[in-house]
Structures are given as structure tokens and as C-alpha cells.
């Protein structure tokens, strides 16, 4: 009762003091790993970096690409050359003027061997300065998707970086503790005030920000605290110790939404959850069928696809916070169609019959490898699927473990049946095909743990990279999807839904990549 009053008072205060001197206390599960903008390619690290650094382009709160340091961009007459015009009058926090040299320097830095961002620039052959406010990026072959790869590539000040001996990105494998891992000098909306790693990072609004009239910019101080335990994170929000949290456990959404002074914002996430089956092997490691691989039979895979009751998972495990799907890409992705997304009707009895018909009247036993600290309710989803497959006659032994032990299994092709989640930062099907559909090789198919290998499909995938005709390209994408779907390459489960919990009165839509850009935040009431 008392707390409610306090919360109400706090809310009233919030309403009263309009847009000035607003402190936002923000918590999520993990901390940024480094302040060096090119040293890690990882969500929370990018999120923090986005507050202080900017790239040529960025995605807004709805996922659309908008101008940032570049005001406009286009392919030149040469389809392998992109030209970017830089914004005038932009200064770094340290006062330095932004020039094309800084951009060239930053891109070259991001392509260095110790950079974590270099894969995103793999197709970039050269970056060059045209004049002080113009740069050109040359790609190896036409790359219609280049802009999508540039939204997380941050621009640093060349002089400042070199002065502080940080020409190369922080190299963890080589005792790499550098200046820019602890200090920042970006062009972004917020300036680093203080930071204690894993504990507390304080940012203040950048008074000289170029976009201070273009964005709400209502927060004056941003305090970021990682809180690892989900229960404690929710408790901190409920008790009013923080104003904004990411990663709200789905079961606590109602409680947060109903609490006085708090609300939940929801949006579909750019991440699909699915199961992979090792259908390429002659025999499986951990099954009870000798000499043959039940996953190699299409009927078995179809039956399993049918056995999974996605609606039940959504209703119970995900508390309606998921979007069941029949394809392994989120709806934002180029190539997505409603027909592909349609889920098969869950029918355990039918599935059982099909498995019997495929030669396993008594079913069979397999092992499911599942992470327990990576996706929303990952272990619970696996458990539910174990039960569903059990009713279809497949006995599943569940082995749930931390992601650090789970992912190497997929990388090393030592799992028969596994869970994986996938986000598509380029918002295009090619990215999915490259990693998940193409035959596993050094370059492509690195996350394809299914042993699936189809030369025809592989060729089509490779052709996508250099196809400049959008219609032709989309046609090929559709063909590949048709093949993938009819082969039941994966068992899609759902697209994750993002939930942010926050104080009432904050107007802040959920960003599909889970990247809050706080310059967009405004206090609505």
C-alpha cells in the first residue's frame, strides 16, 4: 500500500517536471563488453555504443534505415561503388570536426584482423575519400545490401584514436587492453560521464549533438546498470529503483503491466527459434537405431514438424509472447511471405502414424541439445517439445546446457538434434541462406548443423550476392525457400517477441533488434 503511494508520487513527479533534467535508470541482463566500437559484434555492446557513437546510417526504432552521419547515399554508375555524402558541421564529443578521413580511418580499422566487425565488411574492397564530406565504398562485385551492413559500423575520430595508441581494435587474444576500450569520443547523442564495468555506466546528453532538434532528446542523464538475475531485475523495476528494463521475463509481464506506474511495450523481435536435425549423417550418435538415420527420412521430419504444437508453446511457455511460424525467418526479412510463414497443424496422432509408416512403428530415441541461457525460455520450449514428440512416439532425452557448451556442438557438427535462434541483421534472406542453408564449408554454412547439402541450392545462394536485378534476385530467393520448406530442413517454432518494461509516461516503442536508442525516447504524459 505504502509502496503504491510512493510509486504514485514518483509518477506524479515525473509528469510534473516535463522534459528537463530527466534521469533514466536503465537495466538489462548484461553489460557492454567493451567501449571499443569495433572489438565486439554483440547486442548489448552495440546498444551502449549507439548512444555515444554513430555510423553512416542507422536503424530507427522501427528498424528502418535512416541517415546518421551520412545524409544520403546511392550506388554510382559503377554498381560496385557506393557514394556517401557526410553531414556537415558534426563534431565529436572532444570537439573535433567530422571529416571523410575519420570515416575512411574507421572503416579500415573495422576491417583489421582483430576487428569483430570485419565479416560485415567482407565484400568491401576499398573505402576512399572523395572530398572532406564525401566517401566512396567499393565492393567486390555488386552488393545491393551494403547499407544494411553499415548500421553498426561506428565512426571514430582519427586523430584522437591515433593519439591514444588505439589504431587497432582491442585484441583480447593478445593482452589487448587499449585506451578506447575504456574511453569514448563519438558523435552520438550521449557523452560518457563515468563507467564501472559490470556495475554502472552514466551518460549525459550531448549539448552539441547535431540532431538535438531532430530527435526528442528528453533524457539528460542515462544510468545503465546490468542486473543479471531476471527476478531481481523485475524486482528493481517493481520497486521503482530503475525506470526501464530490457529482457522482462514473459511470466512477469502481467505483473509489470498491472503495477501502478509501470507499463510494458511489446514488438516482434528479429529472431526466429527453430530446431535443426542432422539429416546428412549416415547414422546418428545418440539414437537407438543402428545403421540408419531416421532424420534422413523426409516423412520423419514432416511428422516431427507436425508433432510440434506451436500454439500451445505460445500460449503456455511464452505467455502469448511469441509469433508461431513455419519458416526460419522473421517477417521483416526480404523474402518472407505469409504462405511460407503458415504453420502446420499440430497433430500428434497423425505424426505418430507417419513415423510408424516411415519404418518406426515403435518410434525411436534421440537426444535433443538445448541451450539454457540463450533464448527466451529456451529450456522450457525444449521440454515442451520433448513431451510433444513423445506423444508422436519419439523418445527424446533432453540435454540442456549453457550456451558456451551448446554452440560448439553445432559448430563442430556433433549434435543430432538441436535448438538454435537466428536474427537477420541485414533483413534479407541471403543472410539466412548463407549461414543456415548453404552446405557447411569454411566460408558459408557455418551454422548449418544439419548436414544438408544441395548443390543446386548452393549455386542459387551464391548467385544472390551479385545479382543486381531485384526481381530476379527475389525470384531466386523464393525458389530456395520453396526447396527448404519442402525438404523440412528445420523445424521452425516461433519468432520471439521483445518486451520492455518501463515507467508510465515514457513513450518509447520497442526496437525489433532490441536496440533502444535513447535519443528517441520522450516523456509522453
Amino acid at each position, binding site marked *: 500500500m505504502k*509502496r503504491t503511494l510512493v510509486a504514485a508520487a514518483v509518477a506524479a513527479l515525473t509528469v510534473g517536471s516535463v522534459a528537463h533534467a530527466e534521469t533514466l535508470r536503465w537495466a538489462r541482463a548484461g553489460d557492454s563488453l567493451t567501449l571499443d566500437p569495433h572489438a565486439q559484434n554483440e547486442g548489448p555492446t552495440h546498444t551502449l555504443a549507439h548512444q555515444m557513437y554513430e555510423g553512416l546510417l542507422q536503424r530507427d526504432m522501427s528498424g528502418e534505415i535512416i541517415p546518421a552521419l551520412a545524409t544520403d547515399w546511392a550506388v554510382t554508375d559503377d554498381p560496385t561503388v557506393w557514394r556517401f555524402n557526410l553531414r556537415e558541421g558534426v563534431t565529436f564529443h572532444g570537439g573535433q570536426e567530422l571529416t571523410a578521413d575519420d570515416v575512411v580511418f574507421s572503416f579500415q580499422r573495422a576491417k583489421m584482423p582483430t576487428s569483430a566487425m570485419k565479416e*560485415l565488411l567482407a565484400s568491401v574492397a576499398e573505402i576512399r575519400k572523395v572530398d572532406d564530406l564525401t566517401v566512396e565504398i567499393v565492393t567486390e562485385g555488386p552488393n545491393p545490401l551494403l547499407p544494411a551492413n553499415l548500421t553498426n559500423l561506428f565512426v571514430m575520430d582519427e586523430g584522437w584514436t591515433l593519439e591514444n595508441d588505439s589504431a587497432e581494435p582491442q585484441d583480447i587474444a*593478445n593482452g*589487448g587492453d587499449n585506451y578506447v*576500450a575504456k574511453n569514448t569520443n563519438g558523435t552520438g547523442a550521449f557523452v560518457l560521464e563515468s563507467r564501472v564495468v559490470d556495475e554502472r555506466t552514466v551518460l549525459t546528453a550531448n549539448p552539441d549533438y547535431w540532431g538535438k532538434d531532430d530527435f526528442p532528446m528528453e533524457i539528460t542523464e542515462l544510468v545503465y546498470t546490468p542486473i543479471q538475475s531476471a527476478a*531481481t531485475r523485475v*524486482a528493481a523495476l517493481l*520497486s521503482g529503483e530503475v525506470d526501464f528494463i530490457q529482457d522482462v521475463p514473459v511470466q512477469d509481464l502481467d505483473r509489470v503491466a498491472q503495477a501502478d506506474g509501470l507499463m510494458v511495450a511489446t514488438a516482434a523481435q528479429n529472431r526466429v527459434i527453430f530446431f535443426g536435425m542432422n539429416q546428412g549423417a549416415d547414422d546418428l550418435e545418440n539414437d537407438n537405431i543402428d545403421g540408419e538415420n531416421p532424420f534422413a527420412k523426409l516423412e520423419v521430419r514432416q511428422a516431427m514438424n507436425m508433432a510440434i504444437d506451436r500454439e500451445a508453446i505460445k500460449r503456455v511457455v511464452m505467455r502469448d509472447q511469441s509469433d508461431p511460424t513455419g519458416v526460419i525467418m522473421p517477417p521483416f526479412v526480404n523474402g518472407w511471405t505469409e504462405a511460407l510463414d503458415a504453420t502446420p497443424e499440430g497433430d500428434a496422432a497423425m505424426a505418430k502414424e507417419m513415423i510408424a509408416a516411415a519404418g518406426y512403428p515403435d518410434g525411436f530415441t534421440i537426444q535433443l541439445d538445448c541451450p539454457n541461457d540463450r533464448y527466451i525460455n529456451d529450456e522450457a520450449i525444449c521440454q515442451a517439445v520433448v513431451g510433444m514428440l513423445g506423444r508422436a512416439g519419439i523418445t527424446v532425452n533432453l540435454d540442456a546446457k549453457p550456451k558456451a557448451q551448446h*554452440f*560448439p556442438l553445432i559448430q563442430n557438427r556433433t549434435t543430432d538434434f538441436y535448438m538454435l535462434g537466428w536474427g537477420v541483421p541485414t533483413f534479407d534472406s541471403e543472410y539466412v541462406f548463407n549461414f543456415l542453408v548453404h552446405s557447411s564449408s569454411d566460408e558459408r554454412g557455418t551454422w548449418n548443423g544439419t548436414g544438408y547439402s544441395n548443390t543446386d541450392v548452393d549455386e542459387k545462394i551464391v548467385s544472390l550476392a551479385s545479382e543486381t536485378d531485384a526481381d530476379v534476385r527475389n525470384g531466386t530467393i523464393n525458389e530456395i525457400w520453396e526447396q527448404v520448406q519442402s525438404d523440412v530442413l528445420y523445424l521452425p517454432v516461433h519468432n520471439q517477441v521483445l518486451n520492455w518494461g518501463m515507467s508510465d509516461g515514457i513513450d518509447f516503442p520497442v526496437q525489433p533488434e532490441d536496440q533502444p536508442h535513447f535519443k528517441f525516447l520522450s516523456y509522453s504524459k
Partner: protein
Amino acid sequence: MIAYIIRRVLQGVLVLAVVGFVAFAMFRFMGNPIENMLGQEATRLDRAALAERLGLNDPVPIQYLKFIGNAAQGEFGVSYRNGLPVSEMIVQRLPATLELAFVSAVIAVVFGIVLGVFVAIRRNGIVANIVMSATLVGVSLPTFLIGVLLIWIFAVELGWLPSFGRGETGTLFGWQSSLVTVSGLKSLVLPAITLGLYQMTLVMRLVRSEMLEVLRTDYIRFARARGLPDKTVHFKHALKNTLVPVITIIGLQVGQIAAFAIVTETVFQWPGVGLLFINSIQFVDIPVMAAYLLLVGVLFVSINLVVDLLYAVVDPRLRLQ
């Protein structure tokens, strides 16, 4: 005495070496740091190159020897997770853990001894029996549950105390301390109780049973027969004689406090080395895990030594050995 200390220190070093080796043998089963260090776009070649550069392909004994060699020079490498020097991270985190452990140890010892003496003297009293049973509840529920329940009651429902973190810190004797600010002290309450409750119960029960033993000894009867007041008999004569086993247990429990600090720090987001350790396990941050285990080992060895030396202070009979 000095020879004794040197011998104990050497034994301690041996113990540390063994522990370190076991730990290193275990690290390879904890997962692969590469997946966490590279983004999902990394190619197989990138992964192989990084593994090679980190020395992860070396046999365990080689990795171990490298670590020991560097550690001997005070060099613990950088964290795989965030690239910061491990020694710097530990130095930064240690005050929080030491402070939490210290406060909960004080709670455990002070309340444990006072309540222990009380329940021993009033052995059949109603209040003593209630105290005995009530404190048992504390050891009959797992620590993490007690922590979460405390958060629920005192942070969420009542809103009296913070649910996470250390609050404001001030500088005390050159380190960042929560003991000097109001919000820091408030932040300490719940984690310290969570961590200290179990130890308190243990100390209390031990003091009780030792007191009951001692109160039956001839020298206590003789002290009474000489007309010494109860207060002198209980606290000066009896309590001091219970201290040797109590010191032993407290010394050993410091290790338990360090271990349970992992759980408590996770629940309360207490920015200490325990939380750091859990983070490193999840990330397979081998340099941090190795340094942490070494630190804990050093802590245990020194505590054991201190305990042995304390015996001699408390009990003159042990000084001769």
C-alpha cells in the same frame, strides 16, 4: 614458529598448485569461449585462428604451466569477455565481496555467539527452544530462495530496502566502500543477512553444544564452587573455552561464505568477485576463472594459517607444539 609458518605456506602453495591443475583440467569441459568472443558471422577460419592465438589448442598441462608461469610474475592476462586485465578486474571487485563477507561474518559471529550462549544457559527455556527452532528454518531453505524472498518482501512489497547493487559508495581507507553511505548500508542489509544467516545458525548451534559441554566440566563446577558469579563463569570461563572449536568452524566457514557469496551476489547483483566468477563461467572466461580460483585458494590457505595461529592465542596448551 617461523619454521612452522614457512612449512604451512609451502603446503599451501602445493595445495594451490593442485587445485589450479584440477581447475584447468575442468575448464575444457565448460565450453568454448570462442563462440562468445566472435559474432555469429565469424567464419570457421576466424574461429580456428582465434583458438590458436588464445593457446586453446595447447594441451592442458602446457596451458596450465603458462598460467602458473605468468601468475608467478603477477600476470593474469586479460579477460576473454571484456579484454580488461584480470588483476585490475579482481582488484576492482574484491572490496565489494570482502565487505559483504565481512559484514555477514560479523553478523554470524556476533549473533551466533550471543544466541548460542543464551540457548545454552537457558537450555530448557521456552524462548531458547523457539530460537533454536526458528534459526533452523534458516538452514532448511536454500540460500538463493531466502535471498529472493527477502527481495520480494523488503524491496518489492515494502519498498524499504534496495533489491540490487551496492548503492552509493564512499572512500574508506582508500577503497570504495558501502559502509560509509546510507544507501550503501541499506544495500548491504539484505545480502549480508542472506549470506550470514546460515553461518549464524551454525555458529550458534556450535557455541551451544560446546557451552553445554564446557558447563559440565570440573573447572566450571570448581569456578562455581569458588563463588564466582554466573556472568564470570559463563562468559569469562565457559565461553573462552568454547572458542577453539568455534574459531575452527568460523575459519572453515569463511570458505563457505566465499562460495555462497557466488549465489548471494548473483541474486542481489552485488558487484563482487562471486558475480564476476559466475559471469566468467557463463562466458568460459578462462583467465578470470583461473585467477578467481587461485584467489579463493590463497584465501583459504591464509585463513587456515590464521586459524591455526589464533588457536595458540586462545589456548596456551597449543603454544608448545
